[in-house]
């Protein structure tokens, strides 16, 4: 599903990804680990087509994420580490994601309910005015409702209480078949039940790549 071939990404003289080569296949749940500045976020952003690699190639289902942006992003769900301060209200944000990604609004409401987030009473609230946990729950609900074959979570449970974390892992378990799940995390124990592969990065390189 995701094929990364000799990808190098430089920012000025700093090498963020150094000749990365790996492949993520269907039914793989990967924990992407490493110290700050190891290149995890750069790798995720390159997969999403945000960065133009200096060398090498990334293919998602055989497609280049920069040249075939729309076709690639149809198959990717993404939850960032920190929910961005989006000024749209929840109703508008749901409108944006449902129109752009053709997501059924009822699915978003369903997963929000499962995450114990009451969307209906907050519809006219600005997204950025919600609490950290509520924001994260909504982004998770959207990511699950999108029914993507590739799901990327960058420290998704950072703002969640233990109960919400359990709900999140339960929902992921229910939805993991035939998908690639990629977790960027510092806390392996939290996703240990879900993952079957562990990659450790340092200084832009893959140091270890173990199947569990």
């Amino acid at each position, binding site marked *: 599903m995701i094929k990364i071939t000799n990808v190098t990404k430089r920012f000025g003289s700093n090498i963020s990804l150094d000749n990365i080569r790996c492949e993520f296949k269907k039914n793989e749940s990967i924990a992407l680990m490493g110290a700050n500045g190891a290149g995890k976020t750069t790798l995720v*952003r390159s997969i*999403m*087509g*945000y*960065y*133009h690699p200096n060398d090498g190639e990334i293919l998602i289902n055989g497609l280049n994420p920069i040249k075939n*942006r*729309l*076709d690639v*992003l*149809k198959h*990717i769900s*993404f939850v*960032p580490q*920190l*929910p*961005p*301060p*989006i*000024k*749209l209200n929840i109703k*508008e944000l749901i*409108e*944006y*994601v449902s*129109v*752009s*990604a053709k997501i059924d609004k009822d699915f978003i409401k369903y997963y929000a309910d499962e995450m114990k987030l009451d969307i209906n009473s907050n519809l006219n609230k*600005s997204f950025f005015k919600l609490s950290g946990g509520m924001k994260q729950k909504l*982004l998770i609900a959207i990511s699950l409702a999108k029914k993507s074959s590739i799901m990327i979570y960058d420290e998704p449970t950072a703002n969640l209480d233990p109960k919400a974390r359990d709900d999140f892992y339960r929902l992921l378990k229910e939805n993991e078949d035939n998908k690639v799940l990629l977790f960027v995390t510092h806390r392996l124990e939290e996703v240990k039940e879900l993952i079957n592969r562990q990659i450790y990065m340092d200084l832009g390189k893959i140091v270890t790549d173990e199947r569990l």
Partner: protein
Amino acid sequence: MKNLFLIAYLDLKESLRAKWFVVYSLVFGGLIALFFIAGVTESQVMGFSGLSRLLLMYIQITIVILPIFILITTVRSISGDRDDHILEYMLSFPISLKQYYWGKIIGRFITVFLPVFFAMLIAIIFGAFKGAMIPWSIFFLYSGLLFAMTSAFLGIAFFISSFVKSSEVALGLSFFIWIFLLAFIDIALISLMMQERMSSGLIIFISLINPMEIFRVAAISLFDPELTVMGPVAFYILDSVSQTIFVLASITYPVLLGFVFAFFGYKIFEKKDLV
């Protein structure tokens, strides 16, 4: 197209809720209210009276403040979203960069143009209510000029927004461009003219490719078709083109300029790393 209008619509709604938009609308609406309260429509200075006088004053102030308002409120549009990681999330959905960029421009254009235009419209309606003669030709010309100037500075703002790394730099650059076009370029050209280093025709041409300057001259030309208040410079302009052509050029040129800047901004946005 659906996504383009969705982005425009959401940007518009977001802007309408923003504090800057309230200030922006109050400034232009307040100006008109102030003119009426101050009795500008009843005064007669240099032959201009009634609503014509009011519109002339409105446009003179607008020349100065509209560009900086557009620049500082718009220049953060993309660079601010990039800084705050909003772009990273919003572009994780299958929306094309073209739809995102141009949708933002359409939404922002409506936001910045309508308050300026409505303030003028309110002046016309209020003036008509008070029994003043409506200077329709001036109203339509000014509407066209405001449309053109809004296009030019919106294009420049999006161009800056597409390549700067942080919104602080974007704001600094906006301020520099505004002050350069408002004053520095004139000071430089006047000194060149005094030293006779360049031909006067060339200096006037350089001066008129400044969208603020062409706006200013076109605004004068409706009251003073011979541009007598400008002195000898009027000969260079009106000897080269007729007043009608000059007015048409003063509307089409800034619109084109804005489009060209917006287009190059889009090309940079498309080619550069997005976040």
